[in-house]
């Protein structure tokens, strides 16, 4: 008896997704940026997928940005925000982030940024009050993982997001593990950057993963 119980690492690709990929390779192999019919077919398929992904997570369609994967999406959120500033600023993350967030934060720290890592309780949860106390005048971004991949804990994302928004900073969450299951309300979109990943919903691994940078 063979039993796979590591769905948080990756999932088997479902046959419907494989069929769609095979069809795309056969029929929509054009470059979506090309202006001719081959390009148009690929572009139409890309936009249909963008709509399907946006629908699932209740996000505006033009907020879905396809990247090469979750790690790239996290890096785009952290570094993409940071690179707007000539001078180092303040970044807040939690002490239980995936390395795709923790490492870019460490990089920024080496470049002179101040980085606060919020402590967690023994169950792995951040206290929103501690976030409120950690915010500074130069805090430009807060990033807290939504569902922790190693210990399964969900963070109080709505509360953390509200506090961050009230302060005027940007909020990002690594939602790879909750993807498809995240019950983000539409009121949250507009200030959340969220990275999601196809493999946790039995989609393919690779460049199909999305990052939502929303508003």
């Amino acid at each position, binding site marked *: *008896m*063979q*039993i796979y*119980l*590591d769905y948080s690492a990756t999932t*088997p690709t479902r046959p419907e*997704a494989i069929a*769609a990929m095979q069809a*795309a390779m056969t029929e*929509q*192999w054009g470059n*979506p*940026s090309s202006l001719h019919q081959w390009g148009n077919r690929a572009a139409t*398929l*890309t936009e*249909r*997928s*963008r709509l*399907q*992904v946006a*629908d699932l997570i209740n996000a505006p369609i033009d*907020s879905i*940005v*396809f*990247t090469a994967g979750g790690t790239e999406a996290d890096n*785009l*959120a952290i*570094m*993409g*925000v940071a*690179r*707007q500033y000539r001078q180092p600023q303040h970044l807040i993350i939690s*002490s239980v982030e995936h390395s795709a967030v923790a490492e870019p934060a460490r990089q920024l720290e080496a470049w002179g940024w101040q980085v606060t890592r919020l402590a*967690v309780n023994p*169950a*792995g*949860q951040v206290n929103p009050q501690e976030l409120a106390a950690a915010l500074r005048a130069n805090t430009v971004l807060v990033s807290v993982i939504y*569902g*922790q991949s*190693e*210990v*399964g*804990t*969900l963070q*109080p994302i709505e509360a953390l997001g509200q506090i961050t928004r009230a302060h005027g900073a940007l909020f990002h969450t690594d939602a790879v593990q*909750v993807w*498809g299951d995240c019950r983000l309300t539409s009121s949250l979109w507009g*200030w959340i950057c969220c990275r999601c990943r*196809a493999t946790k*919903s*039995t*989609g*393919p691994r*690779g*460049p*199909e*993963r999305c*990052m939502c*940078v*929303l508003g």
Partner: protein
Amino acid sequence: MRPGVGLVPLLGGGGQEFKLRSGTQAVPNIAGFGVAAELAAMELPAETLRLIHLRDRLFSQLDSELGLSLTGDSRSRLPHHVSFCLTQADGEQVSGKTLVRQMNLAGIGISAGSACHSGKLTPSPILKAMGYSDRAAKCGIRLTLGRQTTEADIDWTALVLKQVLTRLQAARPMSKI
């Protein structure tokens, strides 16, 4: 993105994906993602409940058995996620990696809580942040369920895990960590 806030792209190039991610899109992968997302949107409400049921079934069969203690929050928790720290009755601990290997031999794929970089066993920074000792932070395991997981899978996994732990306990595995 919030109005007035720009995001500086990591890659310079043709400006695809709203100028945020240059490079020709991998259309077949994107197509697969779209279909998976559409199916997930239809199936998730029922599937989430099914996974919670299976997760709790696994919990109830394993929790406190042979020194398994839950890591993470028991209520505010991913529906498909079960994780434990292994502490044996005599206080000795089994490394997560040892258990993953033993379970693999039994045909069951699980994960050690901590990332084992290049084969070296390091304490999990996540468990350490939660207050676990260096030693305990090497002893996390994770079982994550999904679409193809059945009740029979769960019951069999619980049985095998108990057998493996009993065997490891008899073998005093701490010397191998």
